[in-house]
Structure formats: C-alpha cells, structure tokens
C-alpha cells in the first residue's frame, strides 16, 4: 500500500508548522517527497521532472505569501498544478454537419476499447444521437461477437464484415449513411505502438473513415510505457482525446498525467466499471488528488453513497456531531463499510490517515472481535455503554471470545471518540438541533467544509489540507 502524500509530508509539515516561511531547503525536501509520490503513482520519469519544476515555482511562490500554514499552501499548490495539468480545455463533441460524426477507437491490447466503444455508443444515445458500432477488430477471436452482444444490450446496431478491417470500416461508414445513423464508432484491434505493420493498418483505417474524433483508450494501471504509447499513436493518428479505463481499481493513474503532458490532448472520459453505465466525464481535480495519493475523496464519497443508505449516512454524521452515536450505529456503519471493499483499500483512499494507521496491518478479520463484542451486548448496553461494568464485561468477553480487557478498551476508546467527535461537531457546525419529527438531519443552513475541520485531534495526523474538489 502506498503512503499517501499527506502521510509522506507529515514529518516535513510538522517541522514547517512552526515556521512562518519555508526555506529553499524545506521546499527541496517537499519536492523530493512529491517526486517520489508521483513516481509511485506511475507518472513517467521525464514528465515528473517537468511537472516538478513547475510545481516548485508555485510552491516557492506560495511560501512567499504570508500564509499561516505554509505546509498546507505547498500541498495546495501541488494539487492545483496537477489539476491544471490534467484539465484545461474540455473536449466537447462538435457534430459533423454531414453525418455521421465518426469516432475512431485506438489503443493497446486489453485497454478496454471494445467495452468503451459500447459505453460511448450508450452515452451518445443518452445525448439523443443514433450511433452505429463497427467491429473492425478482426484480430482477436470473438471480438466482433463481443461487440454484437454489447450492442444488443444497449440496442445499438453493430456492423462488421469478416473480410478486412479497413474495408469493414469503410463499409461501416457507408452503412451508417444508408441507415441514417448520425454517429459512427469504429472499434479497432489492440495493437502495439511499436508494431509497424499494425500501426500502419490503423492509419489506413483512419484514412478510410476520416474520423472527426480519434480516441486513445488508456488503462489507468499503465506504467511508464504510457508515454511511448501515447506519442506513437498521436504521431500516427492525431489523437483528439483520451479515454481512461478501469478507474474503478486502485491504480493511482499517473499514466493520465503522462499522456496529457506528452500529447496535450484532453482526457475526455473516465470508465469506472465493467457495466456500460459506468462511464463519465473526466474530473481533473479528482484525478489530481488520486495521483498524489491524497485520496480520491469524491470517488470515495460516491462509492460510499452506493454502499451506504444516504439517509443513514446523514443521520450517522449528525449523530456523531452531537455525540449521540451509539455502538449500534457503529456496528451498522462497520457493516456498511465492509460492503465497500477491503478495509485496507478504503484506507488507502482516505486522505489524512496517518502513516502509522496505514502500516498497522489492518486486516478485515480484525473487525470480527469488535463486531462480536458489540453483538454480545444487550440493546441497553449498546445504547448506554457506560453501564458496562463488572459482570457485564465478563459476559460480553465470554460471549464474543475476547477478554475483559479487550471489552474495556473498546468501551473506553469508543467513549473517547464520541467526546472528540462532539468537540469537532461543535467546532464545525454550531450545534444546531435537527428538525423535529424524529430523524436527525443536519439543518439546511449548515455547510460542512471538511477543509475547515481541524483533524489535528487525531494522533499523528497533520490535518487534512484543503481537500481537492469539495467546495461550496
């Protein structure tokens, strides 16, 4: 598991906190950590060099302003620079006045071209268009069958011809005109950028259909080679945009930055799952945070949304704030968390989690004794843990297969946490009571900006710097 950037910078930031300004040496140290973080995130070595030079300028600039917290300012500068590097011009589809608008899909083997061709077709449909898919991958066994199956799922026609990829593409274009389809998406075979014969083939396919948009599909887990691939495809085809696939994994995705830096074309779409609907506009701010290892906050939140009942999560947060979070609630939330994936992968996504926590071998089995203890408690004990003394503790220990001292620890830690959370709630929100009518809700006027929360109460945590992307 990679340390996130905040964890990395912990030591440096502690030193920096006391100072009003950063020296060049401080900036050097910070930049070194950032460089390592970017390399671990698979950003290409040469790209890291140029990006770091730019970040350094900003970082030094940030410290010259009389910022109260230079450490946070530096991290913010880094994040801003990456967001800018990943973003910039948004790709928008300008439809050809003479339909169809032709899209060509290109990339390495296994990058996700076929799946994303279908996703793109589905997306165009949602925009009110009538796409036609062309299966010009005659190389991979059953590639066209795959596309046909996907096409059937989304009710988009698929055209292919077993003869030859170039002829198929050309014939597909004619077919689109004949059928009056206004968008044509040509799926091609995966190919190595250094395979001259295959690169030539895709050039010819492109020539045959004269695409309005050529998309390069890049797997988010690609390493240093992303640069080589992007350059070669761009040189051969003139890429208009990039589709980043398999973002639902935990790859940091530095390839996105490498590709953007090297060919300068926008990352248009992000594919976030195997289902056709898991396809969205690319968010540079979220990607920046992810690459930096600062935790992909919004993705985490969205994942949580899917796993958590919205209402429950809101209520839980409200309860936490008011110190009314019970062991029952805790148990429930733990169970919800489990749905989201392994604890260690969730942790890897969270920003501000101190290094010690990450390195402590958090294994999902460690949850079991806690769950066991809570379920061994009576409803009353869960609601009012303070009554858990003496024989109750013994009973719970026996019932859950733990020791009395374990039960003690659980109760004590939980109590301390409740107090701390209540304190934070008061700081963050002003402690207004919820609406009447039973359910606890955060009052409409209250806006929590996690960036303002001082998480320094958590041992070892340097605090959460301005979390990217979460703004008013």
């Amino acid at each position: 598991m990679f340390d996130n950037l905040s964890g990395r910078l912990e030591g440096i930031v502690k030193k920096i906190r006391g100072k009003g300004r950063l020296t060049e040496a401080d900036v050097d140290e910070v930049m070194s950590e950032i460089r390592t973080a970017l390399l671990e995130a698979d950003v290409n070595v040469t790209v890291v060099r140029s990006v770091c030079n730019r970040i350094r300028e900003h970082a030094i600039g940030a410290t010259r302003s009389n910022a109260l917290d230079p450490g946070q300012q530096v991290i913010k500068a880094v994040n801003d620079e990456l967001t800018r590097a990943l973003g910039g011009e948004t790709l928008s589809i300008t439809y050809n006045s003479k339909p169809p608008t032709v899209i060509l899909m290109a990339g390495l083997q296994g990058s996700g071209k076929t799946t994303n061709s279908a996703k793109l077709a589905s997306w165009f449909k949602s925009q009110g268009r009538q796409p036609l898919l062309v299966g010009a991958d005659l190389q991979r066994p059953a590639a066209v069958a795959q596309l046909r199956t996907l096409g059937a799922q989304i009710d988009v026609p698929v055209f292919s011809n077993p003869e030859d990829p170039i002829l198929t593409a050309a014939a597909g274009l004619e077919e689109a005109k004949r059928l009056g389809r206004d968008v044509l998406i040509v799926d091609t075979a995966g190919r190595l950028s250094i395979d001259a014969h295959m690169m030539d083939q895709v050039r010819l396919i492109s020539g045959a259909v004269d695409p309005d948009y050529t998309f390069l599909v890049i797997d988010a887990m690609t390493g240093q080679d992303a640069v080589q691939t992007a350059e070669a495809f761009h040189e051969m085809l003139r890429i208009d945009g990039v589709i980043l696939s398999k973002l639902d994994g935990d790859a940091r995705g530095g390839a996105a930055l490498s590709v953007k830096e090297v060919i300068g074309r926008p990352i248009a779409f992000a594919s976030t799952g195997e289902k056709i609907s898991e396809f969205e506009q690319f968010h540079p701010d979220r990607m920046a945070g992810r690459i930096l290892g600062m935790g992909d906050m919004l993705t985490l939140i969205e994942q949580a949304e899917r796993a958590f009942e919205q209402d429950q999560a809101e209520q839980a947060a409200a309860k936490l704030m008011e110190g009314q979070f019970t062991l029952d609630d805790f148990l429930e939330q733990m169970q919800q968390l489990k749905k989201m994936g392994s604890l260690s992968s969730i942790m890897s996504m969270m920003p501000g989690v101190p290094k010690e926590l990450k390195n402590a071998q958090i294994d999902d089995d460690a949850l079991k004794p806690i769950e066991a203890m809570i379920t061994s408690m009576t409803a009353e004990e869960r609601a009012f843990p303070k009554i858990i003394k003496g024989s109750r503790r013994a009973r719970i220990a026996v019932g859950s297969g733990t020791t009395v001292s374990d039960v003690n620890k659980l109760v004590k830690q939980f109590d301390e946490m409740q107090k701390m959370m209540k304190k934070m709630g008061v700081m963050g929100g002003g402690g207004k009571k919820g609406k009447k009518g039973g359910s606890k809700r955060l009052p409409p006027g209250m806006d929590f900006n996690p960036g303002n929360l001082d998480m320094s109460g958590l041992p070892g945590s340097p605090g959460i710097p301005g979390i990217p992307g979460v703004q008013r």
Partner: protein
Amino acid sequence: MVMGAVEILLLVLIAAVLVFGIGVVVLNRRRADGSATPDAPLTRPAAPPPKSGDVKVGTILEQRGETAVLDGQESEVDPRSEPVSLRERLTKARSTFAGAIAGVLGRTGITDESFDDLEEALLRADVGVGISDELLESLRARVAAKEIAEPTELLDALAVEMKTRLAGSDRSLNFADRAECEPNVWVFVGVNGVGKTTTIGKLSKQQIDEGRSVLLAAGDTFRAAAAEQLGTWAERSGSEFVRGAEGGDPSSIVFDGVESAASKNIDLVMADTAGRLHTKTNLMEELKKVRRVAEKGAGQVTETLLVIDATTGQNGLSQAREFNEATDVTGVVLTKLDGSAKGGIVFAIETELGIPVKLVGIGETISDLIPFDPNDFVDALLAH
C-alpha cells in the same frame, strides 16, 4: 489477535463514518445547488480538433532525443519455426531505452549523473522507486569503496545484482503424476484485459505438443463472448472444451470441466476466469470459490497462474498481493512483453512476494509463449 488494533480501528472507522457522512451531506448540497452532475452534456463547443501533428514546444517530445524506432518489415513468425528468444523479440524495444544507458556508458568515469541515468532506466522499466533506490544504494557503496571504477563495470554490477535476486526460483510448471492426480487443474487469474484467455490458448497448444491431453473450461461467464473466444483457442490448439451459459456460475463450469476431464481421462484442465479488479471484494470472493471448487471433485489444482500485463505500473504489485492472498498464486505469466514496456514490476513481485515468473507472452499468435529466463529479462530491461 492483536488488540492494539481496536483503538486503531475505532479511529479509522469513526473517521471514515465522519468523512462519509459529511461528504454525503456536502455532495447533496452541491447537487441541490444545481451544479453539474456527471451525466450533463459536455459544454462549450471547442475549436475543431487541430489537424497538424506538430511537436509542441517545451513538451516531452522536444526533450527526448531518442525517438521510437519503428521497425521496417516485420516478418510473420512461422508457428512451426524455432522458438524465438526473448532477446530477439525485444530488440526493437531497446532503442527507446538506449538513451539512459548510453549516457552511463558514454562517460569516462562514474559520476552522480551516471546514477541518475541508471535510476531513470530502472524507473522507466517500472521497477519502482523503492527497489531502484535499494539497488542503486548498494552500487553507490561499492563505487565509494572503489570496488567499481568503470561505467561498464557499473552496468554489469547492476545486471548481476538483479539477476542474482531472481536466481534460484523453480520456474517449471507443476504437473502431478497421473497416478496421484487426475486431472491436473491450472487456474488462470488476473485483472481485466491482461491476456488470460490468449495465454491459455498458447499454453494448451504447448502442452498438447508435449503429449498431454487438455480441456479448456470457460470460467469467464461475465464478459460478452468470452466463451466463444476460448472456444476458438480450443479449436486452434486441439483441446477439449467445456462452457456454460453467459451469466452462469463460474464455479459450476469449472467443476463440470474437471468432471468431464476425469471421465475422459484427460490429463490437464485449464480454467479461464473473468478478469476482475482486485479491489472488488465480491469478485475476489467469487474467485476464491472457483479456486476451491476446482479441486472439490476429481482434480487437483497444481498451478494458479496470475497473468500480469507488461505495461502495468506499480499497481501490478497490489494485484499480485491481493490475488495471492485470495488464491495462492504459484506463478506469474508476464504478457505483452513484445511491446515497448519492460515489465519491471515483476521484479518486485518476485523479490517481495516470492512468486516466480514462469512464462512470458510475446505476441498474439499461438506460439508466442516462452519460458521466463531471468538473465535474458534483466539484460533486455537494461538494454545490456
């Protein structure tokens, strides 16, 4: 049971609940404000895409002196020809890395820049920061101790160090005797798009050429037309083939495949599974079940091969870790090494997790699978 974990877990979980809860609230506020949802159409028509292929000033294209050399006529490999060596197939990928290494060798002595160049070469090969640092540290010490003086010696020393670390692993494919085990089951696992199905196609042909009978079980019941794809390979290699309906239970297909092989006295079952990201708990649970069920009946799982794409970056190590935990991986197949990627991540997988790389995929045709040779691999990685 480490109970220190209690307090740690509480911290994490409560922080998590806090974060999620707040996050959800904030997100709701944003959505209520009418800000863009992910489904909104893209805004602002942009200028038509530029049609020139100009090199942008100040970008990496300008900085790099080396350009990728695209080979001229690439001859089709005759499937009946001699097995191609890794070195030959990787020659065309060398040129892009020549730059860093040439820098080292071009100097008269060993300087800081020499180490910078070596670091660059290792990083570009996806060896990773941690391991690169480690390898170079030991070299630095030796240079300081005057054990190494010349650039060529430096490069040699690095190669030797890496080869040493990869030496001594058993890279043979486990196959238990008919008397003990009938049939052998080899399970193929990995994330999406790495080349599991294609590898099975190639390996089944090899095994058949060596005189074994093989059955392919289409355990990927998720991906559209996955069974058709494997079926094509079965035809090409001359293997038996078992599949089920799309969307069916992968474990039952594998079980059926093994039973069928047992009844027909087939030596070896190769079980394909659906690509899955190692972060998806439910899918990993499904995979664990497939692995268990694969030897529930007549057969015995003698190999669980993790297929890793050579273009994968540092995430490959996480993949290996998670798949290993779920299914006890016995070996790695490194695919697509005929491309420009160096596959350096397997160095970490071997040295940190002790999982040996057994096979290398070097193309899309049926004969493009060779045994992993650590010395060839290191030489190719360093353009040595």
